[in-house]
């Protein structure tokens, strides 16, 4: 974000043209057309953010009357054609494929060359990537190579005139700002997972595939990928990247009741979090503390048991997609921002919820097996 972004007072948009800055699109860039989405995949699975972006790209492209294309880079073991079909089902008109042994497993150097060459060859006007560790790593070096503008971690994309208006949080999320790349192409943006809605999948849709060689050999590449260690095998607490979190607070009254939080978490395959008071009381390790002086988390589901919801805790977890709160006090502050509230004693509700969940999931698993 540019350093001189003097926050404008209130919501009055400041004129984009400013002294010393070119804001008109030069002639030679006018032929950039089309909205591209970099489809991120790893170990046989496409990251859901790519499909969310495909849905968003469809909306932007329809507004600009241009095609949507997916970009797939991968090695021999990656089923790129299958992914391309998925991309067409989610709205892509075309998919660009670059297949090469050196692209087996993400490394910055080959992926940057592959994506940059594709962009220079087919000249899109908008390039979207997921704001994952892979997406942000790749976007940074591609944008530098192409000397174009990149807006990171966007929460909203729309078209203003013919240019992309990307809105993103700044100053740690306390503010939002809208950024545009007026005189450079392609306009690049990364978008956070689970921010854009998942589009409807239409299996009948089709689209073409354009293949392109990478033009790089392993010896050109310095960095070697030796191994991949999945999180499940490591016993580190990574609250920041957890999808589901079950947290306990002072309302659980003592340490052994915290066991109930662990049992529910095990059934959900979730991480266990805690409030400052619970950590101070020694019921959970400091790495599990969620809140102003602990971790900030953005899980899909956050279950808060015996937590009043003081502001110091709220700022650490209010970005969760679904917040379930269990508290004996009906006007505990947490009920003001939770999605689902249960007024009741957490020690009583937790085991019942764990059991209800187990029976529900067993029914589902039996139906599949």
């Amino acid at each position, binding site marked *: *974000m*540019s350093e001189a*972004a003097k*926050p*404008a007072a*209130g919501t009055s948009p400041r004129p*984009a043209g*400013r002294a*010393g*800055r070119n804001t008109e699109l030069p002639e030679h860039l006018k032929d950039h057309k089309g909205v591209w989405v970099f489809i991120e995949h*790893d170990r046989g699975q496409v*990251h*859901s953010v790519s499909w969310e972006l495909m849905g968003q790209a469809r909306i932007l492209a329809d507004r600009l009357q241009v095609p949507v294309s997916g970009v797939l880079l991968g090695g021999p073991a990656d089923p790129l054609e299958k992914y391309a079909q998925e991309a067409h089902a989610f709205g892509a008109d075309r998919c660009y494929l670059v297949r090469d042994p050196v692209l087996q497993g993400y490394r910055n*150097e080959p992926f940057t060359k592959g994506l940059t060459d594709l962009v220079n060859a087919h000249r899109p006007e908008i390039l979207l990537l997921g704001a994952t*560790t*892979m997406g942000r790593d790749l976007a940074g070096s591609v*944008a*530098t190579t192409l*000397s174009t*503008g*990149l807006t*990171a971690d966007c929460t909203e994309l729309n078209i203003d005139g013919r240019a992309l*208006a990307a809105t993103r949080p700044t*100053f*740690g999320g*306390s*503010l*939002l*700002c*809208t*950024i*545009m790349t007026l*005189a450079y192409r392609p306009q690049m943006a990364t978008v956070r997972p689970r921010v854009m809605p998942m589009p409807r999948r239409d299996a009948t849709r089709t689209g073409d595939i354009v293949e392109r060689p990478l033009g790089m050999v392993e010896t050109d590449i310095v*960095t*070697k990928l*030796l*191994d*991949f*260690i*999945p*999180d499940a095998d490591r016993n580190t607490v990574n609250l920041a*990247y957890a999808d589901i979190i079950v947290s306990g607070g002072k309302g659980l009254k003592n340490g052994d009741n915290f066991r109930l939080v662990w049992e529910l978490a095990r059934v959900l395959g979730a991480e266990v979090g805690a409030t400052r008071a619970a950590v101070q009381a020694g019921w959970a390790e400091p790495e599990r503390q969620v809140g102003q002086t602990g971790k900030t988390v953005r899980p*899909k*589901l956050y279950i808060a048991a015996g937590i009043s919801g003081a502001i110091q805790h709220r700022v650490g977890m209010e970005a969760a997609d679904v*917040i379930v*709160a269990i508290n004996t006090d*009906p006007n505990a502050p947490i009920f003001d*921002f*939770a999605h*689902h509230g*249960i*007024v009741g*004693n957490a020690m*009583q*509700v937790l085991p019942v*919820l764990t059991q*209800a*969940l187990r029976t529900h*999931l067993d029914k589902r698993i039996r139906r*599949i097996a």
Partner: protein
Amino acid sequence: MHIVVCIKQVPDSAQIRVHPVTNTIMRQGVPAIVNPYDLFALEEALRLKDRFGGRVTMLCMGPPQAEEALRKCVSFGATDAILVTDRAFAGADTLATSYALAAAIRKIGEEQAVDLVFTGKQTIDGDTAQVGPGIAKRLGMNLLTYVSRIVEVDLDRRRLKVERRAEGGVQLLDTTLPSLVTMLEGTNEMRFASMEDMLRAARCPVRRWNKDQAGIEDVARIGLKGSPTVVSKVFGPTPRCEKADMQVVADSSANDVCLNLLQKIFTQHPTLEDEIVERLSV
């Protein structure tokens, strides 16, 4: 071993408040601090210096008062500090910033070859995480972002092995020096500086470079002119706090309440249920 650590002085964004009524940004009393992510990078660099000896040079691009941030880094144990400050840099976005910092690192390399460049994962005001990749690209250095652990450094064979966070796991990467590393937060804990370093930092002059001393050739690529991105407006988020839909256990059995809750959540978020089932059946 010569390591360059890039830092930025940023406003302590946790203290920024948006006035609920007028929606203006209240910046009074928001002190400037060293970007917290950069301190993880500095600590990692200092640990390598403790092990292999050598120099840690701090580099910062910013206004004159950013000298305070550099002096603080020297007090943790960095050898010396360079502040790249010039009116021409004002308004730079990440592309222009990476151009300027890359030029300055090239200049530092002329005094003593640089083995490793460290930056923080991102800044807390920009949050873009693009300056690290930008510098690496311009200097032709290997880029290792979101590094959670330096596994092994072999100065003789000029090799470096790191663990890099990826989605759902950690990559083990092996590469050569020189490299640019951005450190993940929470990987280490900043040391409590010794008295000797505190006194040395209070005395140590912070070198100031303008754009020429920093080796900038193309003035069109720095500051506003070198910045493709334009901020068109800044505004406060609309707070969302509608009341939760409540159920009370007292009047109906806990079991009904829980089943009702699960039913509501899973209908609203079908993908959530699939993922839980999938994770359990694997």
